[in-house]
């Protein structure tokens, strides 16, 4: 796809929306940042490359009163479908500009590969090579080596919902079984090992709530029960129980709703695999109710509905 075609489309879309959300260069060469375009002269500042990691749809529920255009990758488009399923946005108020995506970078993985040196320049070639200049030295990385985990098993490189598609559709070559491979692998551990793993991970949590704030499906905003005093679910005490409880709140409130965009993991300053719990629940939802979040417009999330006779839930005996 060409950036010119994208800019042209945004120019057209901008005529009948209040704002178009896209990406622009961030504070350094490695970071991009959301770009809110309200007038045509702002269009030129926008960029499109594998640095565009954010899920921009996260702004949509809070912009309900406006008509919004938004640039989405394949994974981000699932969020829009999920929003519509849950009635959080109106389809008519969103113009979706979809871009088939070959994968993005993980800033953490790039920084690790170049030893956290300051980056002066970064460029991308069509074959998936990334050339990074830092401290006068050039280094070539492959996109596949520094992309986030979600890209390595991506099933939906082409947006599932769009009004304008920029560029050619891409079909995935990654096997569908690979998506939950790590979850199945983890389930082979013993109960003690799993408990130890989670306690070790959650113990590092600093309760900055960045995972919650970045999550597009966390829509309670000021009423989040992790912070309300009435009801008082968790205290300010600094201990593992409270941290564990916070992550349980996040995971269970996303049961059968998580679109696996990976924003929670991307923003976690402590590198906790926050998305894993939600993906485990998604795997169960797939097995129990044959449901995958954010894929079909006419479905309802499994926790929102029920069947009088559940085919796959058996009564438990003691």
């Amino acid at each position: 796809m060409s950036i010119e075609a994208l800019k042209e489309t945004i120019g057209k879309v901008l005529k009948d929306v209040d704002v178009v959300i896209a990406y622009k260069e961030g504070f350094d060469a490695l970071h991009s940042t959301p770009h809110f375009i309200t007038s045509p002269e702002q269009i030129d500042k926008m960029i499109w490359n594998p640095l565009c990691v954010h899920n921009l749809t996260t702004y949509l529920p809070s912009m309900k009163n406006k008509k919004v255009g938004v640039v989405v990758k394949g994974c981000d488009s699932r969020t829009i479908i999920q929003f519509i399923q849950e009635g959080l946005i109106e389809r008519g108020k969103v113009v979706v500009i979809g871009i088939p995506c070959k994968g993005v970078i993980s800033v953490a993985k790039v920084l690790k590969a170049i030893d956290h040196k300051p980056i002066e320049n970064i460029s991308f070639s069509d074959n998936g090579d990334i050339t990074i200049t830092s401290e006068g030295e050039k280094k070539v990385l492959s996109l596949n080596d520094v992309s986030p985990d979600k890209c390595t098993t991506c099933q939906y490189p082409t947006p599932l919902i769009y009004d304008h598609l920029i560029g050619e559709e891409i079909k995935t070559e990654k096997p569908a079984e690979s998506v939950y491979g790590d979850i199945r692998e983890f389930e082979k551990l013993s109960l003690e090992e799993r408990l130890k793993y989670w306690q070790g991970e959650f113990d590092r949590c600093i309760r900055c709530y960045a995972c919650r704030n970045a999550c597009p499906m966390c829509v309670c905003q000021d009423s989040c029960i992790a912070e309300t005093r009435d009801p008082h679910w968790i205290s300010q005490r600094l201990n593992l129980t409270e941290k564990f409880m916070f992550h349980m709140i996040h995971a269970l409130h996303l049961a059968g709703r998580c679109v696996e965009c990976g924003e929670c993991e991307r923003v976690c300053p402590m590198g906790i695999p926050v998305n894993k719990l939600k993906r485990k629940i998604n795997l169960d939802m797939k097995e129990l109710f044959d449901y995958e979040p954010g894929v079909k417009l006419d479905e309802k999330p499994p926790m929102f509905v029920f069947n009088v006779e559940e085919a796959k839930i058996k009564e438990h005996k003691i």
Partner: protein
Amino acid sequence: MPDVALQQELRIIGFLCNWCSYGGADTAGVSRFKQPTDLRIIRVPCSGRVDPLFVVKALLNGADGVLVSGCHPRDCHYSDGNFYARRRLEMLKRLLPFLGIDDRRFHYTWVSASEGARWQETVTNFTKRLHELGPLQLKKEVSS
């Protein structure tokens, strides 16, 4: 009937719906059925009121086991509360082992107000199972 009185008592939390299971527990009591005393009952309006987080919070904060009981499917006082509960609790039942908590520590079932004997059986068996598992030991120390 196992003699649990000789062992140390465990902390088991029971969430019982007001209309069926709480009545069922009452029936068991009125009928003078012998029951273990480890269970502490919390009455809720409906099993649909039971947020899976109630169970997690209880387990993380010192309970050794949690029992949720509501009206039989199709018998809900609010017509569909227990249908939602069934999906949520099943989801939780599958998640607990992923966290490293034995899912035998959590049980959900349906007991109607007339089923005093069924209630006695449920409580007795669940308590017995938990005594076999012993207290739930999560790492308790305060982190950095």
